[in-house]
């Protein structure tokens, strides 16, 4: 075949796909998509980094599935097998664990940057709410995945978490029983959590991620109101950067940076496996949950045994629940009836929440 035939055949093939997929419309859409450029643009990258880390989770999770066995008698041994016998097994598991933690961290950074850059304003309320659901699902991934190695720390963390669910008013006991697959944390819980971790949560996450990204596409990336105002006064439009290739290549560099951080952490600090869970051993000294549950964990430690007519953990759970609902409803209370922003309240609550999360997490870690 002459050399010139090959590009022609490729063009024909591309044309064949084009005709059937309508890719020109997608190209057209991407070509016209822009991202606002201002002093806060750097914060826009965190949503993309979170998405990238989720992709890493999916890939490494699929790899781990090839060897992992979700039963109380085999789970610990199968993870031990992965990290000691399977080539690069330690690395894959370590990357899975580290990227889970980094993903939750970047999701929190993304959430707070949206709060302070006012990305939740009308008409982006549903984008905010779908993001909150995704954060909740990420925490669900963390909680369910934590038990899977079936080690001592994860066993007791799950006991505490499930018992905390039991303290919820009305539905608590049924919810805890549903989560545990019985009255206590056993092999049945492990099997359930495995199901949640690899089937239920990924399905829900895919649906909400699709909604979240579709909404981001629909409304575009928001510009903070003070930048809009400044440019309006100057009579100048807000500078824009093309999404492709300018923003995307920058985002790609951010992904590389995240990958580099992940590689360093996973290689230098391999995720420990710990001791196999023994339901008839005492909870070990220094036990604590993953860092993203440390703030509520430490708060529960400080609460007295009874608050008014409630037991301490019940009061704590109700408090955390109300706080989560209130925070989720942020787009609806952060503006008044006339649509004016309650700036002081919003900034105050945001700063207080960050202060509580960081200080109580540190106290929970070190005390």
């Amino acid at each position, binding site marked *: 075949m002459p050399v010139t035939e090959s590009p022609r055949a490729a063009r024909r093939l591309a044309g064949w796909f084009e005709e059937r997929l309508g890719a020109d419309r997608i190209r057209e859409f991407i070509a016209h998509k822009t991202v606002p450029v201002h002093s806060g643009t750097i914060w826009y990258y965190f949503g993309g980094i979170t998405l990238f880390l989720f992709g890493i989770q999916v890939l490494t999770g699929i790899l781990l599935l090839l060897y992992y066995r979700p039963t109380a008698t085999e789970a610990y041994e199968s993870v031990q097998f992965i990290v000691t016998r399977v080539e690069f097994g330690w690395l894959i598991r370590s990357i899975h664990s580290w990227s889970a933690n980094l993903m939750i961290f970047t999701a929190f950074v993304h959430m707070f940057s949206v709060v302070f850059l006012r990305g939740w304003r009308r008409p982006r309320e549903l984008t905010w709410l779908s993001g909150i659901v995704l954060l909740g699902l990420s925490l669900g991934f963390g909680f369910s995945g934590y038990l899977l190695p079936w080690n001592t720390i994860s066993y*007791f963390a799950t006991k505490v978490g499930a018992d905390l669910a039991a303290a919820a008013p009305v539905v608590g006991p049924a919810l805890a029983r549903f989560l545990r697959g019985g009255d206590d944390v056993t092999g049945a819980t492990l099997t359930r959590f495995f199901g949640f971790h690899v089937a239920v949560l990924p399905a829900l996450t895919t649906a909400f991620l699709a909604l979240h990204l579709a909404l981001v596409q629909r409304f575009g990336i928001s510009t903070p109101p003070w930048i809009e105002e400044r440019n309006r006064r100057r009579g100048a439009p807000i500078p824009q950067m093309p999404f492709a290739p300018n923003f995307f290549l920058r985002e790609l560099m951010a992904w590389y940076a995240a990958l580099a951080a992940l590689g360093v952490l996973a290689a230098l600090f391999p995720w420990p496996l710990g001791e196999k869970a023994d339901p008839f051993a005492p909870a070990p000294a220094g*036990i604590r949950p993953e860092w993203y549950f440390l703030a509520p964990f430490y708060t529960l430690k400080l609460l007295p045994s009874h608050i008014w007519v409630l037991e301490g*953990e019940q009061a704590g759970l109700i408090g955390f629940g109300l706080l989560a609902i209130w925070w989720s409803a942020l787009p609806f209370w952060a503006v008044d009836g006339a649509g004016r922003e309650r700036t002081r309240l919003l900034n105050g609550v945001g700063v207080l929440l960050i202060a509580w999360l960081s200080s109580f997490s540190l106290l929970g870690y070190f005390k």
Partner: protein
Amino acid sequence: MPEPSRRSFASWLLSGGIAASLASFLYPVLRFLRPPSLPEAPVNEVVAASAQQMPLNSGKLVRFGSKPVLLIRVNETDWRAYGAVCTHLNCTVQYQSASQQIWCACHNGFYDLNGRVVSGPPPRPLEEFTVRLRGQEVVISRRA
């Protein structure tokens, strides 16, 4: 009030049928999600230790059916046993011989040798069991 037309009746019938069929699909799913209660052979007493092998001022976790029980030998003649499940959030407690207290590592709850809460978040005392000696065997049983 307008008379219901044939169309609205058909619409009602269709939506009602869909709702009923959805309910009939969901009901077994919901029931499936609820874990069945597994009957356990009732355990009334267990031989927890040999008196000779348990040092003074020490504790030992023993299996009582599906639950852990903490057996404590306070001195030569004083034996006690408590359900080892913390009343706060279900962690398994341990005996601290230095302070002669029962400790839950999860949220730093302390109980005294009578199973009563000394400090920390636990809301209730530990469940108490009866201990008796049968020769050299230490036998734990449920309180009547």
